[in-house]
Each structure stands twice: as structure tokens, then as C-alpha cells.
């Protein structure tokens, strides 16, 4: 449990921050933020066998090739590095059970474990694990 003083301090700090924000921005025009166009990641993904490519196209591509989804993009080595560091089994578990926006089974209801592992390896540019 956090110290009581922190709990008391945080509301005061936020109220002061809010007051400052208000004093500086009341008459300002509404903020319109243009999201920076996401640069496509450097793609280093290897080609897939035709049957797995078909699975990728219908189940993975709609998130893992569109940066706005927030999903790590296929072949984006930097985005996958911290995920890969968790180990292939963790990534497989996230695929099968779902994780954040990721749907369970990765939207492939008929995939088996080997296919999931191969698709993960493809997107993360890892060596496939058995």
C-alpha cells in the first residue's frame, strides 16, 4: 500500500496542473492533433509457404500490416524484440488465449500449434520453433 501522504499529494498536484492547463488554454482554439503518419517498418519477413501465406492473409494481416491497429507489424524487428524476449511460448500463449486487442486463436479458428508458431516466427522474423 502506498503511503497516505502520496495519496494526498497526488490529488493536489493534479488539481494544480489542471488549474494551470485551464488558465493557459481557456480561450485557445480546440487542439487538433494530426497523428504522425506511421512510417512503415523495415520489413525483413521471409516468404511463407502458400498455405500459411493464405492463413496470414486472412487472419493476421489485417492488424499486423496496419500500424493504426497498434499491433506489432510484420517484419518490424524493433517492435518485436521486446516481445520475442519473452520467449516463443509466451507469444504462443498470447496467440491462443488472446492478448489485449489480439483475438484468441489470432482469428484463425482452425490453426494448430505448429501453424501458430510458424506465423509468429514469420512476423517476428524469428527462427521457427518446433
Amino acid at each position, binding site marked *: 500500500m*502506498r503511503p497516505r501522504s502520496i*495519496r494526498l499529494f*497526488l*490529488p493536489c498536484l*493534479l*488539481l494544480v*496542473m*489542471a488549474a494551470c*492547463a*485551464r488558465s493557459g488554454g481557456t480561450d485557445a482554439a*480546440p*487542439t*487538433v*492533433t*494530426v*497523428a504522425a*503518419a*506511421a512510417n512503415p517498418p523495415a520489413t525483413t519477413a521471409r516468404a511463407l509457404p502458400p498455405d500459411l501465406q493464405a492463413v496470414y492473409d*486472412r*487472419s493476421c494481416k*489485417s492488424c499486423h500490416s496496419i*500500424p*493504426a*491497429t*497498434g499491433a506489432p507489424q510484420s517484419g518490424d524487428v524493433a517492435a518485436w524484440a521486446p516481445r520475442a524476449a519473452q520467449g516463443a511460448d509466451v507469444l504462443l500463449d498470447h496467440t*491462443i*488465449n*488472446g492478448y*489485449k*486487442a489480439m*483475438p*484468441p*486463436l489470432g*482469428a*484463425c*479458428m*482452425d*490453426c*494448430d*500449434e*505448429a501453424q501458430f508458431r510458424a506465423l509468429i516466427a514469420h512476423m517476428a522474423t524469428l527462427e521457427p520453433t518446433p
Partner: protein
Amino acid sequence: MSLRRRELFKLAGAAGLTGLLGRVPGVAAATRAIAWRNWSGAQNCLPAQRFAPASEAELADWLRKARGTVRPVGAGHSFSALVPTDDSIVSLSRLSGLIRHDPATLQAEFWAGTPMSQMGAPLKKVGQALVNMADIDYQSLAGAIATSTHGTGPRFGSYSSYVTGLRLLTASGDSIDCDTSRHPEIFNAARCSLGALGLVTRVRMQNRKAFRLHSRQWVQDTDELLEQFPELVRKHDHFELNAITHSDVSVALAMDETADTRTLQKEAGGDGEKVGMLYRMHHEYRNWPRVRATMLNTIAKHLIDFPDVIDDSWKVFANVRDQRFNEMEYEVPAEAGPACLREILRKFRSSNIDSFFPIEFRYVKGDDIPLSMFQGRDRCAISIHQHYAMDYHGVFAQIEPIFWKYDGRPHWGKLHSLNARLLAPLYPKWKDFLAVREALDPQGRFLNPHLRSLFGIA
């Protein structure tokens, strides 16, 4: 222990078959028993077979031979137990994409397994767009119409209301093409069927010309917004509010068609930061409700930025939801919506309910589909969410009676506690639907325990 034994039997049996027959296309191999679960994780099952046909002919042949219960599965974004079965789940993910379109009528036929997220781009290429969309697009087309999934706006019905024709494969493997002139009673029932009539393989949608939307969000006192609600829904094409529980404020969202050619893209990523802030406020200050309310009011009004978005319609409607939750939603008569929401918000504060997700409040036009939640009149959709890792039973049990008081109908894809005895009086055409279901599937092959409870079939 029994589950483990069953898993082992399934593994052993399936492994043996696979060894004899090799890999069967479209049928999951059995290197490991893989359970199906929905997005929130609250529903799951270990089906004997997961099947994804590559064609209607393959599906029809499989249906004729299949034994046991058959349940269709889409994206797994329903929160209720529509899918779980020990027998077979069928995915139409291989039956995906635009089949044909008609520029004169602005109708387009899609394979029913098409994800809603995959409809916007091909429709734009032919100059069309879905008339309205839900706030997420993870669903499959078949799943969305099976549960009357909806967006918001007083002039717009649910996805089901824009279906102008469909193909249904029945339990016998027969194919029925239906619309308002061919098998109209089946067509109307199948526009919202919970997957209880058969497997819908093709859907023809009434669309409109492609268009762009301008989305604006702002924070305002909830009482003010509810007083202005009739005017706001008239003024904007699409309007909704998200009431921040345990506070006095809501985030209002208005989306209007625009001729503005600028593009202000939606920010990438999900809603984790905002949801995380709500969680921290709730977690840290739940025992100090007045402090929590002040904090939430202040932060929402002054410290959170809500950028405008201008883009193609489908890119504006859809959001990334990366914070998993369970959800209960009821549709109450439109005129009762504000009073119902006020009572729910009072209950949250008076009982200090352990939940922090905003309550979504939307407006949907009525239709004439027997099992649609919007059959007969315009309704307000009120959605209660609970973080997936927190218990939802107690929260939903405290709120659900308020919905009953306002003549609410539960969303078929979301959690509720009603069965046939309580549902039948809510739907004037209840028996019409049950008659169609009985005629098409007398053996109840598409019924799992949840559907049997909903329809009162032993």
C-alpha cells in the same frame, strides 16, 4: 480431473486419426488440445472439432455428415455463451471478401466470414460504404448480423436492418437463398438468429455512397449532456456519450458526414492509457469517493486530449480496444434512456460499485426483425463494462434490475441472466422466430446449452 481425462481422450483419439489420415485441410491438427475462448476470456470450450471450410459445397457436405452440436464462431467478440460446445465449432474465415456489387442499388454481397474491418476498403473501391458501423470492427459479418450489432444514430438501425438478402445452409446441408420476396419469413428471422437457424454463408447489404466523417469528442457534465441529449441526437448524424462512472462527467462523441478533404488520422494504438488512468483513480481512491470524483472530473475536463478525426467513414467509426473487458448491454425505449442512465450512475456511486470503465450510451433506430433488440421502436443502448480480470457477476447483478425496470432487452452478444420465460414477453414475434427455427432445425443441432435456455428448449 474429469476434464483432464477428457482432454487426454480427445488428444489420443485425434492424434490417432491424424496419424492414420494425415493433415486434413480446414480441420485443426491435434498436436495440442487448443481451447476456444472469447475475447474477454469469460467463455471457453474444448470442442472435438474446429472446422473452417474453403467453400459452401465443403460446408454443406460436412454438415450432412457432422454429428452432435454445431456452433458457428466468428471473431469471438460476443461476451455471452453463444459459441461453447463440446462438439464442433465452424469458422467461416475462409469464406471472406466481396462477391459482387450493384452500383445502381448500392448493394453489395459479401461472404459471411468477412471481418467488418475488411469491408471498408473494397467497398470504397466500388464507391460504396456501410451506412453505419459499430465502434469496433473486429466482428465477422455473420457474427455481427446474428446479434443485431449496432452503432449509434437516430436514423440508423443495426447491421441486421441493412441486410437485403442472405444464403443459409441448414442442418441438412440444404441451401436457402432468401430475401423479402423469397422465403421472407426465413429471411426476416435469419437477419438476427444467434446462429440458431443454420450457417449464413453470404450476406447482401444495403449500402450508401462512400463518405467521410468528422469526429469530435469533448468532456461535459453528464447531467447537461442528458438534458441536451434529444437535441444532440437530432443535430448530429451519430452521437453517443461515455459516462465516467463515479464522476460527474462524460465524454461526448459526435460524428458527422463532411465534405472536408483534409485527413486527420485517428491516433494509432488503443485506449490503454485512458483506461489505465481510470483504473488508477479507482484503485487508489475508491475509499475516498469525493476525492475520486473530483480527480476524475478534473482530469477528464482538463488533462486529457481528444483530437478531432477526419477520414473515410470506416476508419472513423472503428476504434482499437486493447483493454479487455466483459460487457452487459440492454436496449431500453429511447425516451427512457436518460432516466435509466441517471439511475445506473446513481447506483454506481451510492453502492460504490467496484468498476471503473465508462458506461456507453447510444441511440439505435427501430426495425421489424423478430429477434432484434430494436424490433418495434427506437431504443437507447446502455453498456456496462467490467475489466476482464475483475469479477463481473456482482456488478452486473446490481445493475441488471434497473434495466428490467425500464423495459430493457438484453443484447444477445453480451452478458445477461434472462431465459425463455423472461425473454418471450419482451418480443412480440418470439413465437414466429421459434416456429422458423423448429422447421429448419427440428433436432436442435445448432443449439448449445445457452441457446436452449434462451429459447426454452430442453
